[in-house]
């Protein structure tokens, strides 16, 4: 790939950096309500951890402690599972679907009412930009409750010719990249199908789940139907291994997913796993280039690249590689990295110190392997965990930065000549969660989308989500689908 700047013609370009600057436009944190300390939410009440230990949840943009959160262990998990089982047997599984649905509608409505508070806390706790938490995470989370609420009394239409029954108690473990959305994504279909749940949020982003607990309490949901236990992998493992859990729903890394699959091997537990990805984003020469560049940006830099379906491998057809990369660099130079609560910010904080360390490690690996690294020259705050948007040129299939999930704003760029070549390269990974295709030709889209081994394919768009749309992976990106009609099945026994 010839990408040396010396071969590029000098063209006038827009300068976003030196001419003028955006004035800060921070979202106010004034009206949100945050406690200093959060316990577990078990059986409809906030209860102290059995071990009496708490851990801090910090704001990754400021490194300041926002609140303390209960550190759960197997005793807390056991208590929560018992509460869930009790609520399941005594209340929830007996309740008519239409009534269950009403509770979900209530939750959706309260989330909409408190959307701003949820968005602000989501950005403070996780580091994502307020633009995204306000416009994507929060409305989508509410929409999931709204969508699945309506399924609660219509389940027999989803699986014709089969008898349905709830699974029982579902143990749900969610990641730190979309804390509120993942909680909604997991809880809503489980409840609609008549299950009770124990949710374990990620240790770096527990706060919106605790706000959701408040909402669930305020919605008057029967005690024990939803239980939330905070903690780290230890609590997660206790949940996975608990004898009275009927189903595990896990979203997270492929490594942990494999451990879970192995751990429940000898049991009757059902499982859905939403694991890692290394999505190919494919740009053909006949694509609308400017839109494709915007799609590349959205594909990899959305949520700082903390997205399992991020378009982290870019394949550009050779004939347009030079122009695409030039425009991509220009566009990247306009991205504002900084305060997640500033409405102008495009890229917020990396979720944790550990994650920033992992990303930096991969940047080093990329350079050591001989790839050409390019980063935008934007300023980044001196405090907090930030990473400049990064691309790697001159990479090949065997590079680790091409094969392994980085989970950060790092894009590896390769070129291709033929359709067969790009299909081969795109599918050449153990993952299979998502892919992107950019072309003006409909027949080419359908040729490509049917050959890409991935659960979600975005054509001429990227990183779109909707409660009605099934989401999930092929191969080592996990199994089972969440969202839509297909997302009901993992929460039902079908006979």
């Amino acid at each position, binding site marked *: 790939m010839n990408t040396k700047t010396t071969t590029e013609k000098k063209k006038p370009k827009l300068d976003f950096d030196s001419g003028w600057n955006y004035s800060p436009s921070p979202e106010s944190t004034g009206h949100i309500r945050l406690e200093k300390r959060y316990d577990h939410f078990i059986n409809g009440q906030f209860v102290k951890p059995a071990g009496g230990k708490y851990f801090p949840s910090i704001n990754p943009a400021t490194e300041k402690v926002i609140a303390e959160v209960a550190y759960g262990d197997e005793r807390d998990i056991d208590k929560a599972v018992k509460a869930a089982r009790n609520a399941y047997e005594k209340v929830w599984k007996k309740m008519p679907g239409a009534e269950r649905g009403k509770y979900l509608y209530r939750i959706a409505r309260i989330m909409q009412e408190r959307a701003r508070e949820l968005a602000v806390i989501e950005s403070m706790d996780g580091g994502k930009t307020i633009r995204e938490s306000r416009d994507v995470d929060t409305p989508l989370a509410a929409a999931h409750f709204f969508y699945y609420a309506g399924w609660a009394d219509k389940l027999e239409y989803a699986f014709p010719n089969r008898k349905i029954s709830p699974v029982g108690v579902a143990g749900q473990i969610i990641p730190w990249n979309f804390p509120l959305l993942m909680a909604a994504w997991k809880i809503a279909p489980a409840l609609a199908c008549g299950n009770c749940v124990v949710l374990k949020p990620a240790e770096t982003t527990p706060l919106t789940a605790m706000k959701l607990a408040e909402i669930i309490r305020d919605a008057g949901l029967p005690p024990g139907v939803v239980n939330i236990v905070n903690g780290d992998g230890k609590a997660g493992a206790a949940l996975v291994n608990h004898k009275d859990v009927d189903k595990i729903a896990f979203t997270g890394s492929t490594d942990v997913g494999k451990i879970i699959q192995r751990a429940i091997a000898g049991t009757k537990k059902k499982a859905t*796993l939403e694991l890692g990805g290394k999505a190919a984003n494919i740009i053909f020469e006949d694509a609308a280039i400017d839109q494709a560049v915007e799609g590349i940006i959205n594909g990899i830099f959305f949520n700082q690249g903390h997205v399992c379906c991020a378009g982290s491998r870019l394949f550009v057809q050779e004939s347009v590689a030079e122009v695409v990369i030039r425009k991509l660099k220009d566009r990247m130079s306009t991205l504002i990295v900084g305060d997640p609560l500033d409405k102008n910010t495009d890229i917020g904080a990396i979720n944790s110190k550990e994650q920033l360390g992992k990303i930096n490690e991969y940047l080093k690996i990329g350079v050591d392997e001989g790839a050409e690294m390019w980063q935008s020259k934007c300023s980044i705050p001196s405090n907090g965990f930030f990473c400049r948007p990064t691309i790697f040129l001159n990479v090949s299939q065997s590079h680790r930065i091409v094969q392994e999930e980085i989970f950060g704003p790092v894009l590896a760029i390769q070129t291709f000549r033929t359709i067969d070549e790009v299909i081969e390269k795109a599918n050449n990974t153990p993952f299979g969660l998502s892919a992107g295709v950019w072309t003006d030709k409909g027949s080419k889209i359908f040729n490509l989308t049917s050959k890409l081994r991935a659960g979600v394919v975005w054509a001429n768009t990227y990183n779109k989500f909707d409660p009605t749309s099934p989401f999930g992976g092929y191969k080592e990106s996990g199994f089972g689908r969440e969202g839509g009609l297909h997302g009901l099945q993992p929460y039902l026994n079908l006979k």
Partner: protein
Amino acid sequence: MTRTTIKKTYKLYIGGQFPRTESGRYYPLLDKKKNVIADICLASRKDFRNAVVAARSAFGGWSSRFAFNRSQILYRIAEMMEGRKAQFLEELLVQGSSKVNAEKEITLSIDRLVYYAGWCDKYQQISSSVNPVASSHFNFSVPEPTGVVAIVAPQNSSLIGIISVVAPVIAGGNVCIVLASEKFPLCAITFAEVLATSDLPGGVVNILTGKISELLTHMSSHMDVNALVYAGKDQKEITLAKENASLNVKRVFVYDDVWEKGTAQSPHFILDVQEIKTTWHPIENVGAAGAKY
């Protein structure tokens, strides 16, 4: 003078060929009176790996065939079986089945193939969806085959067992490597002869004979196998298979049906080994364009 009959050599079925096992090993199949019926190939890990290679290379072609074509080939398999009823009957009898039961099993097997032949171009319609997303996108989900499927056929059945687990897998465009019943392997190899003469491309179905105890570890741990179907109830084997499956996040399905029942057939066996693929594409925003038509 009475004629000396020709005894059949039972071999493996890999990539459309009938090789002997690479290992050169066999096990004797005995009838009730301890007479040797046949020497059955004891497939090795190498045989299984060869079968995976054959299956993987057949996957692209088989999965991209028109569903109508797959349907015709499954029906053709049923036709071929109908013509070989006598051979299957003889094998079932020699393995200890009664004539009445054997005849029932054969007709049920043929009918089951016809049943799945009919599903080839229909299951997509009942499990697909157009998803009404709240944005200007056209969004739809369709089932696609999972890939290479390793199958442990039911051990207590010679014919209907293997047909019941193989038919839904290939009806959905997958390819498979199936380990036949160790106790009743004869019909499996004859079924391979049926497949070989039925327009089914080589490699789509590969049939091994041998021991679960030897092969299950390899079937469940092979990194180029996407799914594992285990028909049986041995808890230790199920645990082993599922544990190994976690190496590459294999999908594992454990079936414990009574395959002789007429109801032990369902499109859901096809859908188990399908992935749901969702495609998004922007549409021009009709709402914003105004409803002036």
